[in-house]
């Protein structure tokens, strides 16, 4: 009975109620959608970490992480690997060699981590081979060429392996991509000149483009005019196990492009037996054994088991390797809840205001109700229910809209192209697919109800304080 009356009361002043409901709806939509975007970004980062960067569990020599020395390697790798591979929870295992060194081309030198891999085994653990930039190679596909290397896109740029050139073909491509004729006329004057780095190319572009034109088409021009020499040659230099300077010549067998520019610019992959013989490491050794599990949630249990199986080695779960990511995923739920609570707290003031008006407006009516025998508890409950209806209706509408919009955007993603550099420097993709679990909507619903209840307390007390006799006499 009370519920019914409360619902009817809400719609007595339609405009006022609708304003409150709309504000709650907008607030909830903004909050939920923002959380969806954040959550999508974090999920993608976690996927990247598992898929491309660290997998789930890594094993290394006890001193490897502090010394990073070639001699801190795992002996007898093959048998250890087989033993781990036989475990039920393990999907796949691979091992890697790590050598710190320099990559050099005729123009540039960059410090890199050289990683020796067995390309076949790698594929079962890491998905990095799928991130191959089209047209740059085939990821160790050529069995004849032993000295191939798989390098990151940013490293290729830093080493001037990727260059910029305006050719007739590029001009045609730009034309079909919708570049206005006056701009293409301007940049055509650079035809035939090769720019070795992004900086000099951008400088040249700036000389013919206005600021607005550059903002709009700069990225398109830059991406279209990238050129790359197949099987480009570069040298890697490093010290071998006896601390002698050594090195070798390698050819680019592919360029990978992921959303982590730090990783891209520092990790170079080569065949393990090539680097092994160059640094003179014996067979059957590796610096890291990397494990991919069937289920991420087994990480802790498997880590514990491996720790007791191999006490002389260091076994690390992904949480220990990437503590920042672990913290982020652990705190995410709490953070989202806190974020929503903040928005709702602001909305609560609006509801309090409306409910106060409701009470003051209906002084006579409330007095009458008490006079004819409705007890104070029921009055209190009626006002509280009204307030909850207000917030919950708004909340439902807001959640429905945000759910629909998240569905739509999660299919195609949102591209923050202009902020790509900043995002990728932190390891996040600039193309975000918003996503949020259904559980979050329950949490939000509870929060909305709590907000409704809390913001009715003060107005309801105000209603209780009314003296029925006096209230009846007011006009």
């Amino acid at each position, binding site marked *: 009975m009370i519920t019914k009356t409360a619902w009817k009361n809400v719609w007595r002043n339609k405009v006022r109620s609708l304003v409150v409901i709309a504000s709650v709806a907008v607030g909830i939509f903004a909050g939920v959608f923002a959380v969806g975007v954040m959550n999508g970004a974090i999920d993608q980062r976690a996927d990247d970490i598992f898929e491309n960067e660290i997998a789930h569990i890594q094993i290394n020599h006890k001193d490897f992480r502090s010394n990073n020395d070639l001699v801190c390697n795992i002996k007898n790798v093959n048998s250890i690997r087989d033993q781990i591979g036989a475990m039920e929870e393990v999907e796949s295992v691979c091992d890697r060699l790590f050598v*710190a*060194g*320099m990559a*050099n*081309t*005729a*123009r540039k*030198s960059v*410090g890199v981590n050289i990683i020796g891999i067995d390309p076949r085994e790698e594929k079962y653990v890491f998905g990095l081979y799928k991130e191959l930039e089209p047209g740059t190679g085939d990821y160790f596909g050529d069995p004849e060429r032993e*000295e191939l290397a798989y390098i990151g896109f940013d490293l290729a740029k830093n080493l001037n392996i990727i260059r910029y050139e305006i050719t007739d073909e590029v001009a045609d491509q730009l034309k079909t991509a919708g570049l206005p004729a006056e701009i293409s006329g301007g940049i055509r004057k650079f035809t035939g000149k*090769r720019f*070795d780095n992004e900086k*000099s190319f951008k400088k040249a572009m700036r000389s013919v483009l206005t600021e607005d034109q550059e903002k709009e088409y700069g990225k398109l021009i830059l991406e279209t005019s990238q050129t790359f*020499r197949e099987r*480009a*040659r*570069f*040298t890697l*230099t*490093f*010290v071998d196990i006896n*601390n*002698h*300077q*050594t*090195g*070798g*010549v390698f050819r680019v067998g592919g360029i990978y492009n992921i959303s982590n520019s730090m990783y891209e610019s520092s990790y170079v992959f080569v065949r393990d037996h090539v680097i092994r013989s160059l640094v003179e490491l014996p067979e059957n050794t590796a610096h890291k054994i990397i494990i991919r599990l069937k289920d991420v949630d087994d990480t802790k249990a498997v880590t514990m088991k491996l720790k007791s199986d191999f006490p002389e080695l260091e076994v690390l779960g992904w949480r220990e390797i990437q503590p920042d990511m672990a913290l982020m995923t652990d705190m995410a739920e709490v953070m989202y809840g806190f974020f929503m609570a903040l928005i709702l707290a602001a909305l609560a003031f609006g509801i309090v205001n409306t409910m106060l008006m409701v009470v003051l407006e209906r002084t006579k009516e409330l007095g009458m109700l008490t006079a004819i025998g409705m007890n104070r508890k029921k009055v209190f409950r009626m006002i509280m229910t009204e307030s909850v209806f207000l917030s919950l209706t708004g909340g439902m509408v807001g959640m429905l809209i945000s759910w629909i919009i998240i569905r739509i955007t999660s299919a195609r993603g949102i591209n923050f192209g202009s902020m790509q550099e900043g995002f990728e420097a932190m390891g996040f993709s600039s193309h975000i697919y918003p996503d949020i679990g259904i559980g979050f909507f329950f949490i939000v619903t509870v929060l909305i109800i709590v907000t409704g209840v809390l913001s009715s307390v003060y107005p309801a007390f105000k209603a209780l304080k009314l003296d029925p006799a006096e209230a009846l006499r007011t006009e």
Partner: protein
Amino acid sequence: MTKKLLTLLLLIYPCLSLAAQDAAEIVKRANDKINGEKSSYSEMKMTIVRPDWERTLEFKNWTKGREYALTLITAPARDRGQSFLKRGSEMWSWNPTISRMIKLPPSMMSQGWMGSDYTNDDILNESSVVDDYIHELAGEEEIEGRLCYRIKMTAKEDAAVVWGHQVRWIDKDDYLFMKAELYDEDGYLVRTELGKNLKIMDGRLIPTILEIIPEDEEGHKTVVEIEKIEFNIPVEDDFFSQQNLKRVR
């Protein structure tokens, strides 16, 4: 039939390779000329030219064979006393202002030495102009008023060199490197090296000025001038030690 073919091949082969052999021989002789001395002591001046500034370093240099070298900077005052030691393929540096000996890591090998266009890698000379390239005689040209062989050197497929090819001009009479152009894999010029001002020093004719001009950086240049050089001085192996690196004056 097979035998005939083989004989024919054997006969032709020396003729084919004669030209190549020649070019390789020329480079080898020129290379022996600069690296062939038992030991040397020299005083040099290096000027680093940049678009908006220029600075000059002076240093003393001891070498023994290709294995050992020791360099002491004598001017300007700010860098005085800093010294470098090369033993084989390794390099150390001593900095007296912070009293620290540093073994140069690979990361520093390819950076410019003392901010010049000379890289530490050039000094260590890991790659060899003789072994790592295929040589080809490509005519004769006059450089600095002297007739030179023009030799095109293409990097061998598996050689650990960053260059695609080089063109070197070698003096016909005295086998001196007069000019070098270093190209990347796509045939773009990256760096030019020039030998100038031929003089007789300690009984030998040598270019006393060496200029390095990087191509894609406008206004950059490094000039090394040899002020004094003595060949085959008596110097022991243990002169090139870490202890001496700190002591040397």
